[in-house]
């Protein structure tokens, strides 16, 4: 059996990220599952000039863009759903600090699928005929742009269709509900595009709300949509998606979603936010203290909590995870 891949968050960011890299978030839309805490650590380690591949914006991209750490992004949706416009991202785009290339929410997983399958291009029957095709922020002088979504001929019907450029990000930090120490992962809630991304990215770091014993994985192999084969490291970090939600685990923190997005609307607000909520903890325990134990208890009382029931008996205690992590980090 291969050795466990458990790493601390700080070590995973140190090993697998660098300035200027193409960094992808494995999320489930703006309100749900996302390794937001991985983005916080990228900032703690002063990563910059990131090229962000985000199927949808989330508070993670909102933060990375608001701080100025991401200078390029490719996205399908760039808001925060019912929480409104993403102020950090918006400010960065409007000021020209971040160049944002627009696609749709189907285009992004298709491009990831293309990367995963090592295809030269992916046929496009959506995004064509609109300004998603004709306008390119990465090639602003081209109009109509064709280096972004090319026009090709369907060899069978002879009609004109589009061609998407596949994506192979340098790194994907993928949030999951449960992972075993090797990285076999179970997601509760929509997978969104985490399956395609896990095969498209050159490196994959799993960030899990809980670590389960391998016996759990053997009980539900059909539900393991990300196998350890494609995983380089596993980070255990409870409430990793906060202030977003993780079905079965915790609800969205409505108050912090608003406060965070409010702060990211200005440079001063962003600076204060970073001081308090990015630099304001040392480890998992102080992170949880920062959010507030009472608030965590409240967020944990989710109507979706029953979704976790079949898996609870395999959730490993923090002390055991810490022991395995210490072993893994020294090898």
């Amino acid at each position, binding site marked *: 059996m291969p050795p466990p891949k458990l790493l601390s968050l700080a070590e995973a960011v140190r090993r697998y990220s660098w300035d200027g890299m193409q960094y992808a978030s494995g999320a489930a839309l703006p309100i749900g599952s996302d390794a937001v805490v991985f983005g916080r650590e990228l900032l703690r380690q002063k990563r910059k000039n990131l090229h962000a591949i985000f199927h949808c914006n989330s508070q993670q991209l909102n933060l990375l863009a608001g701080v100025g750490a991401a200078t390029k992004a490719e996205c*399908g949706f760039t808001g925060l759903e019912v929480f409104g416009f993403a102020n950090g991202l918006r400010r960065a785009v409007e000021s020209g600090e971040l160049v944002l290339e627009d696609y*749709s*929410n189907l285009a992004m997983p298709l491009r990831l699928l293309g990367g995963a399958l090592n295809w030269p291009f992916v046929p496009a029957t959506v995004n064509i005929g*609109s300004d998603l095709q004709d306008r390119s922020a990465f090639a602003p002088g081209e109009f109509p742009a064709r280096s972004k979504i090319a026009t090709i001929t369907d060899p069978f019907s002879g009609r004109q269709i589009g061609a998407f450029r596949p994506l192979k990000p340098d790194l994907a930090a993928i949030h999951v509900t449960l992972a075993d120490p090797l990285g076999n992962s179970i997601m509760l809630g929509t997978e*969104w595009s985490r399956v395609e991304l896990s095969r498209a990215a050159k490196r994959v770091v799993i960030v899990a709300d809980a670590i389960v014993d391998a016996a759990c994985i053997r009980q539900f192999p059909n539900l393991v949509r990300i196998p350890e084969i494609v995983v380089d490291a596993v980070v255990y970090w409870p409430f990793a998606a906060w202030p977003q939600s993780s*079905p079965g685990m915790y609800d969205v923190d409505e108050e912090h979603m608003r406060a965070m997005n409010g702060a990211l609307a200005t440079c001063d607000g962003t600076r204060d936010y970073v001081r308090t909520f990015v630099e304001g903890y040392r480890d998992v325990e102080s992170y949880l203290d920062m959010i507030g134990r009472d608030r965590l208890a409240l967020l944990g009382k989710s109507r*979706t909590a029953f979704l976790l029931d079949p898996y609870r008996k395999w959730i490993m205690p923090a002390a055991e995870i810490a022991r395995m992590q210490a072993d893994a980090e020294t090898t």
Partner: protein
Amino acid sequence: MSATSPYTRQEMMAIATGREIRDGELAIFGVGLSMLAGFFAQAHHAPNLRAMTEGGVYGSTPVGGLPWGIECNRISTNATSFTSGLDALGCLVGSGRCDVGIIGAAQVDKYGNVNTTGIWDGEIGDAYRAPKTRLTGAGGANDIACGAKRFLIMVAHERKRFVEKVTYVSSPGYLEGGNARARYGFAGGGPSAIVTTMGVLRPDAETKEFQLDAWFAFSSIEEILANTGWSLKVSPHAHVVPEPTAAELAHLRKVDETGALRRQ
């Protein structure tokens, strides 16, 4: 809600949109108002509606009020299937299988083209430049506009939103009108109605230019013309939309438990 009306303009818009949804259809709803309109239809007159979100959340009904997102725990708590964006937007929508979708708009033009990407000061010009005000982008709306058999556009009726030609086409309506969509071979048929806070616009069968089809009881042809930025034609069959019934309002307010449509 005004003192004289027992319902808000937003509620009327949601009900009028919901009336466009038929029982048994396969439907996809976006976040916010469109989700309320869709689940209102399911609660009121379309019990066999098969509803999905673009996140791949199937078979669920929101609990506890308007979900914060299409994958929010409020809609993930009673799902029958969790799949993916590729499955929902690709296999079920882009493929042409989905009957109807509902999308929103920041700007809409006379051919039903939708802009949700940004607001520029004037035309973009030949070289692309960042918008003055960045909006939410296309999201799944472009895929719904290309793939759904028909789709509905929900938008607040304001002159600045109803323009001759949108600055940026995020999601295609009928493009330049007529059979322009045929150039791209889209699986979907295009927008069947624009439902606003004042009335309902529908496309002309040939030109595909949107015309005024009906106005809400609290509005009028004059108010709608004054709030439309192109020279809006009025259908010879234009009529007043029946007001919400007590049953419709009750069902809508049950879905809209947190009162999102009653805050004006």
